[in-house]
């Protein structure tokens, strides 16, 4: 059973079964890693924000660099109007990043490799962005689906395509993160299994693959968190500054 590469994605209950009415909201290994990631973020950034020295120490530098990194990312993609949403995007980026990174620890559970988690995040972003768009521009937000400079003949087609692409945003956003994390972890598990099955003679090749994949996966873990955050910024940009 443990050799099954999908086994690592199994969710199981930790502790007693908790029921809210007829709904099961038991504490699972996924919940555990959500809590661990959040706590890690809070501890690291709290320690980083605690001291107020002119020349920062390591943790302070880390938190300040993250702060400026996210701030720059937002101002580059969504402009200065997106400033009120900074803390949300920062939390989102850090949460996804830490969940991805904790997933890289052997035997750890990767929260973001579950479509339901990424989909809830993406759906929340999608709904939030849509609400912001309608609040800022009223019904004028619908102009988003009518790009300027398109011939009248093509307009019905283009509008349909735009609406479909807009509605598919939460799906593409969530599936991108979920599929990347799942595929990477499955690959690593598979290669790890080969190391065992090929033994001391042939196991070196999959082992080296596994080592290389670990580096790649760490890169992907960061990159996917970054992509998730930057796409959120781009969607937010569409809602704040109607470009079309």
């Amino acid at each position, binding site marked *: 059973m443990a050799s*099954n*590469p*999908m*086994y690592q*994605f*199994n*969710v199981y*209950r930790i502790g007693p079964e908790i029921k809210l009415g007829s*709904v*099961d*909201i*038991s*504490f*699972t290994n*996924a*919940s555990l890693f*959500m*809590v661990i*990631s*959040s706590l890690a*973020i*809070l501890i690291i*950034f709290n320690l*980083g*924000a*605690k001291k*107020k020295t*002119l020349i920062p120490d390591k943790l*302070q530098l880390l*938190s*300040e660099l993250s*702060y*400026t990194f996210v701030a720059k990312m937002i101002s580059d993609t969504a402009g200065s109007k997106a400033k009120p949403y*900074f*803390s*949300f995007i*920062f*939390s989102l980026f*850090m*949460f996804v990043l830490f969940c991805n990174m904790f997933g890289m620890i052997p035997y750890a559970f990767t*929260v973001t*490799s*579950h*479509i*339901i*988690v990424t989909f*809830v*995040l993406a759906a929340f972003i999608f709904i939030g962005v849509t609400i912001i768009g309608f609040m800022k521009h009223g019904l004028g937000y619908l102009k988003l689906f009518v790009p300027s400079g398109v011939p009248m003949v093509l307009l019905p087609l283009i509008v349909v395509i735009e609406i479909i692409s807009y509605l598919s945003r939460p799906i593409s956003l969530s599936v991108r993160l*979920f599929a990347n994390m*799942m595929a990477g972890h*499955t*690959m690593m598990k*598979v290669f790890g*299994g*080969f190391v065992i*099955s090929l033994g001391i003679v*042939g196991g070196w*090749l*999959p082992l080296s*693959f596994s080592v290389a994949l670990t580096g790649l996966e760490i890169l992907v873990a960061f990159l996917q968190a970054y992509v998730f955050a930057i796409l959120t910024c781009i969607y937010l940009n569409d809602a704040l500054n109607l470009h079309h």
Partner: protein
Amino acid sequence: MLKKIIILVFATCFACFNMVFAAESGGMPQLNPEFWISQVFWLIITFGILFIVLTKVILPKISDNLETRKTQILENIETADRQKEESQKKIDEYEKIILDSKIKAKNYFNEAREKILDDINKKRAALEKNLDEEINSVENELSEFRNKSGDKINKIAAETSAELIKELIGEEVNNSSIAAIVEDQAKLSKERKDVI
């Protein structure tokens, strides 16, 4: 060797696909809705707490920290600029003072030199005047003396001649006649001298 590696890679890939398909036949745990609601519930709780704490407590601190550092650095740069300007001003002042004092020193030097030159000239003029006066008086004395000396010489010559004649001849000769002769001789010699 290369062939072996290639075969091994192909075998690996084949086995990999086999395993993945085998896994898929077992189903993806992600699509099992048993714990979906639990995951969503805990996601909302953890992410919510994370978001609230970050927004209310941690991010303002970091932003404050960055802001104070920025302002402090700006302030420091400002003071540095101000101090630089001040020092530049001081240097200018200092150079001006040095220049002024140099000019003053030159003036003093020139004044002193002129004064001394004046003094020297005055003294020299006075000295020259004195000298001239003295030379004149000496010359006057000399010419006076010369004029007087003629008479005296004549007188002495006459007396000497009278004595000589007395010794030679043994009788007294009239003084006046001797004087007349001496005078004649003196006149002659004088004329001779003048001619020469």
